[in-house]
């Protein structure tokens, strides 16, 4: 059965834990971004964008602020790389464990994210390489679109049991409604 046959097909997966770093630039923006691009192997994603740079996933989260998701093994080295590249134009902070990630697979992720939400997850402009922060079921959440059939959702660990439970129930309803 092709996925298209079931537009609402969706499955939830809790990926392996990873290291999470945060860096912010407060001065010398162009030069700092160039240094970081060289150090990380590609241009920093723009506003509300995300991208794979080498083995890391960069996500724009706030003005002049990015999150870096990397493997537990690369965590410390990446933190040092960021600190060096930033120099006096910014700083990096270890945030590992501060957000829990859920991967939502299947073409139905857009429908799933409209349930209990206020964000237009079904808009074609919300394409791979886009990020969005919003609120679902009283919980703060950030989406990172990985591919047309896959999105990552981040929320603080304290909110994750209830929020991921909410999405499990919603996914079951979508399955049963088919």
């Amino acid at each position, binding site marked *: 059965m092709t996925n298209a046959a079931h537009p609402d097909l969706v499955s939830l997966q809790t990926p392996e834990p990873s290291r999470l770093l945060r860096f912010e630039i407060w001065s010398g923006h162009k030069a700092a971004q160039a240094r970081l691009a060289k150090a990380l192997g590609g241009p920093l994603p723009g*506003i*509300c964008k995300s991208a794979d740079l080498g083995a890391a996933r960069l996500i724009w*989260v*706030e*003005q002049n602020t990015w999150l870096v998701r990397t493997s537990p093994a690369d965590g410390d080295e990446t933190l040092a790389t960021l600190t060096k590249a930033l120099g006096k134009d910014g700083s990096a902070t270890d945030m590992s464990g501060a957000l829990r990630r859920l991967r939502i697979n299947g073409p139905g992720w857009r429908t799933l994210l409209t349930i209990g939400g*206020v*964000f237009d997850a079904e808009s074609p402009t919300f394409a791979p390489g886009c990020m*969005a*922060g*919003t*609120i679902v079921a009283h919980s*703060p*959440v950030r989406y990172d679109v990985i591919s047309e059939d896959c999105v990552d959702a981040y929320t603080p660990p304290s909110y994750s049991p209830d929020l991921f439970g909410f999405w499990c129930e919603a996914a079951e309803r979508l399955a049963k409604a088919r």
Partner: protein
Amino acid sequence: MLLIACPNCGPRAQAEFTFERPLASIVTPTETLPDLIHKLFTRENPRGPSWELWRHTYGCAGWLKVHRDTHSHQISAALPVDMETPS
């Protein structure tokens, strides 16, 4: 529920935002007491357009200045907070 065009994230539902205060009520720590009392403890409270400070709390956590009519709710501008405020 308002639709506010966040300068970073585009038009988003009011549920993602928090109203902080009128722009005129922003007080810096070095303000004199009379200025602080005027800004913090009185309001023009207009029934019409006025500049307000909002935060895109659940979006980009950024702060924006919104020019909004408190009666019709028509929003004529939403700008990053450090931009020059047009008259």
